[in-house]
């Protein structure tokens, strides 16, 4: 029992809200749901879409094909008709002449008289989306009552009138579809009344950070990281945290370092362009051994590029950002549960090792929404590392040895306000008290001190995680968000008679060489999936673990992999007896494109 629904409309028409309401109906029925929004970097005009994938079995990823398309304007009919699955349904506004675009013969055309239904239900014209929402739910065979609950929760704060109007509009669409739209073969029904949460990657990171005791979040708005600051601002007083929007990302990172120096767990968040402005201050955190956490939600680059789309091209940027050489931790969660877990762990890494920690997401995971259980808080520990308290009196005119040399490279840090802990934190090279020094022996000793942290840190860095059967003909290898389509492709491969498993990296740096080598030694054919054009993980693992992969499957057109694509490409390789070129570059140009010009319009 699985279904994929896509809603399409022009930007500004409310597709995101409509889509989220639809997805919540299924989540509340105990089903597994993934929602994937696509939108251009324009507020009005341009094309928005929102795909909701529903299943009673685990589901992780958006799909290449949709079973139902709800087209709220002409472009949506045009853009999505070819990505409809066989026997799929197109629900469209009756003012659109869908037939003139010659959809495939197997597609069911469901013409929705929106205006008429709105008039009949007494709802206003701005409720057109809600009528379509009701119709989509009816076509999917799902009962109406959950939608009523969702709309009530969504609009209660706008008053009972708005609630009633919305429900009436939804019911009109629902009833019309039930009575008139026949022949669609698939359906979904509620599985249980077990409540799940429906959460996006950025929200999950936010919650993990708040759970970790993050008391200060500071950022400059940048897509696709802005929902971090939106979510945290919306809840700042409930969470008891302070959220600050600064004049730019330079300020944001400097604030984050300052707050951590003062003893408060603080985080900043941004995308690649903003991160570029943050790197100098991140280096200051490293030199001054001040903890700091940054969530980097990447999008295609370089330059402004495609701001609202996705790419995994900032692994190397995260790793090498800032001048000089220093250690850092890079964590790339693969799903919302990992977003929560790695976020709270990030603060422990930052505090214990007094260094920058980067949580590396991308637009796909950051802004897509997933059903899951309430997060597992049982494992959460707050580890602040070496904090200096109750210190002995300092000799006159001397300072506390904040940077005392130690075997593990970590020295105790007092927070300002602590008597007898006075010292200078500095971005200059410095002696044990923080006094700047250009003495060669001091320089070498302090570089060695900071680098020595790797030994204890490495003990906390697990290797990649294997999903699926222990042994398989093909092992898919990926990192971060691409775990999601990767996992969903395993079953598709098995349907094609290919046994496959998935090796996923979420601890990106430092690289646990032994664990990586051990994991890969058990693999037969390996196919690396990366949402970039240069296979950055392959390079990193070659450098640190001297391992390589049989094939690199690369996609870098602004979209994540879809499970069908992975399965098709791997099946093609298997059919050729795995005798093929190492690099396979794919895109979505053959089945879906969002440009009216391509259609001669």
């Amino acid at each position, binding site marked *: 029992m699985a279904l994929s629904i896509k809603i399409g409309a022009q930007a500004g028409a409310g597709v995101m809200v409509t889509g989220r309401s639809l997805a919540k109906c299924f*989540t509340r029925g105990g089903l597994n749901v993934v929602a994937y929004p696509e939108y251009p970097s324009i507020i009005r005009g341009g094309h928005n879409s929102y795909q909701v994938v529903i299943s009673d079995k685990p589901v992780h990823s958006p799909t290449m094909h949709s079973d139902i398309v709800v087209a709220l304007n002409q472009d949506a009919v045009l853009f999505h008709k070819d990505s409809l699955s066989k026997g799929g349904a197109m629900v469209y506004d009756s003012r659109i002449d869908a037939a003139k675009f010659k959809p495939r013969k197997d597609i069911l055309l469901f013409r929705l008289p929106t205006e008429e239904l709105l008039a009949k239900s007494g709802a206003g014209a701005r409720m057109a989306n809600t009528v379509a929402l009701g119709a989509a739910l009816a076509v999917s065979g799902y009962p109406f009552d959950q939608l009523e609950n969702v709309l009530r929760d969504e609009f209660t704060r706008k008053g009972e009138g708005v609630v009633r109007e919305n429900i009436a509009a939804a019911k009109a669409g629902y009833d019309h579809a039930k009575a008139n739209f026949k022949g669609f073969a698939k359906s979904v029904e509620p599985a249980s009344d077990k*409540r799940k*949460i429906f959460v996006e990657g950025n*929200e999950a990171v936010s*919650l993990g950070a*708040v*759970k*970790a*005791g993050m*008391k*200060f979040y*500071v950022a400059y708005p940048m897509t696709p990281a802005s929902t971090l600051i939106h979510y945290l601002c919306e*809840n700042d*007083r*409930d*969470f*008891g*945290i*302070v959220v*600050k929007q*600064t*004049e*730019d990302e*330079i*300020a*944001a990172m*400097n*604030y984050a*370092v*300052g*707050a951590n120096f*003062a*003893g*408060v*767990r*603080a985080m900043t968040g941004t995308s690649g362009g903003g991160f570029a402005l943050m790197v100098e*201050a991140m280096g*200051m955190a490293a030199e*001054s051994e001040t903890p700091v956490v940054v969530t980097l939600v990447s999008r295609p680059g370089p330059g402004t590029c495609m701001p609202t789309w996705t790419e995994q091209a900032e692994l190397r940027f995260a790793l090498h950002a800032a001048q000089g050489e220093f250690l850092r931790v890079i964590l790339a969660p693969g799903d919302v549960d990992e977003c929560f877990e790695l976020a709270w762990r990030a603060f422990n890494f930052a505090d214990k090792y007094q260094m920058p920690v980067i949580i590396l997401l991308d637009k796909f995971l950051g802004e897509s929404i997933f059903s899951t259980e*309430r997060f597992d*808080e049982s494992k959460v520990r*707050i580890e602040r590392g070496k904090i200096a308290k109750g210190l002995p009196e*300092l000799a*006159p*005119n*001397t*300072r506390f040895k904040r940077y005392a040399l130690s075997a593990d490279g970590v020295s105790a840090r007092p*927070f*300002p*306000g*602590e*008597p007898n*802990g*006075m010292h200078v*934190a*500095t*971005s200059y090279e410095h002696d044990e008290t*923080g*006094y*700047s020094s250009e003495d060669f022996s001091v320089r070498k000793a302090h570089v060695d001190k900071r680098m020595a942290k790797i030994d204890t840190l490495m003990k906390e860095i697990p290797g990649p995680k294997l999903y699926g059967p222990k042994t398989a003909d093909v092992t898919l290898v990926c990192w971060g968000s691409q775990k999601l389509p990767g996992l969903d492709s395993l079953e598709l491969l098995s349907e094609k008679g290919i046994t496959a498993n998935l090796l996923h990296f979420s601890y990106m740096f430092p690289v646990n060489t032994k664990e990586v080598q051990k994991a890969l030694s058990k693999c037969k054919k390996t196919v690396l999936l990366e949402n970039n054009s240069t296979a950055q993980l392959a390079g990193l693992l070659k450098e640190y673990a001297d391992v390589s992969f049989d094939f690199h499957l690369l996609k870098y057109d602004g979209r994540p992999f879809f499970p069908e694509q992975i399965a098709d490409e791997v099946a093609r390789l298997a059919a050729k007896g795995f005798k093929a070129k190492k690099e396979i570059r794919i895109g979505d140009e053959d089945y879906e494109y969002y440009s009216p010009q391509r259609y001669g319009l």
Partner: protein
Amino acid sequence: MATVEELGVKQKVQWCPGCGNISLLAALKGALSDLGLNRHETVVVTGIGCSGKTSHYLSTYGFESLHGRSLPVASAIKLANTDLTVIAEGGDGDGYGIGVQHFVHIMRRNYDLTYIVHDNQVYGLTTGQASPTALLGMKTKTTPWGVVEVPFNPISTAINGGATYVARGYAGDIPHLKELIKGAITHKGFALVDVFQPCVTFNYLNTYQWFQERVYKLEAANHDPKDKAAAMEKALEDSKTDYKKVPIGLFYKEERPTYEETLPQIKGKPLVRQDISNVDISMAYKDLE
């Protein structure tokens, strides 16, 4: 509470003999001592440049940050722990050049902290280039034909930009400067103290003698710092008189709620003292279901 002596450190001050920073440091130590502030509850955040060394020569807490970034670092320290006395310092290149965006925006926010700018109209540590406050015609390594850009006016910018305490001191008059700094620290809100601090090595134009002939005290001229229009007039007097008359003292002061006061999250308990051992996030799930 600390004496001027206790506020110092063993390390030798490494500024040029006669540098205005030496007098500025003396005035700052005097102010901290007079106010009876605890060294462990005082944080001095500096940028990079000759002025940046100030944090090294004090036995308080210090953070020598990056070029131009003392204000954002200091802002966050204040937000994290409102019990601390936070003083940010930087040079004219640091604060009015590379870090000017922070200066412009911090004034709108009115955090309760003090910003002391070591203003010597030249870049010292990088061996003598024109700074944003360099006067027209001044010849430096980067302006061999003379500066053609009009100088940045920090005082008028601050009065116009929302600063609630705007003062200018002169390193040649330590007692006067000390009082301005004390006023800035005790002022509730963002306080700017721009300090003429002659660079004896790279600025051949704005020397002690040059200032001595031109500066006069606003306090002696019957200026009312609550009068914003009069303050603006005084802020523009130096350029209007072709630098024949250069006022120093308190230009402007107003009372306005601080940014911190608008945050119920930190009322009565600074962030740093809030318990994080078991944060409750259960209220968040309701909106997500």
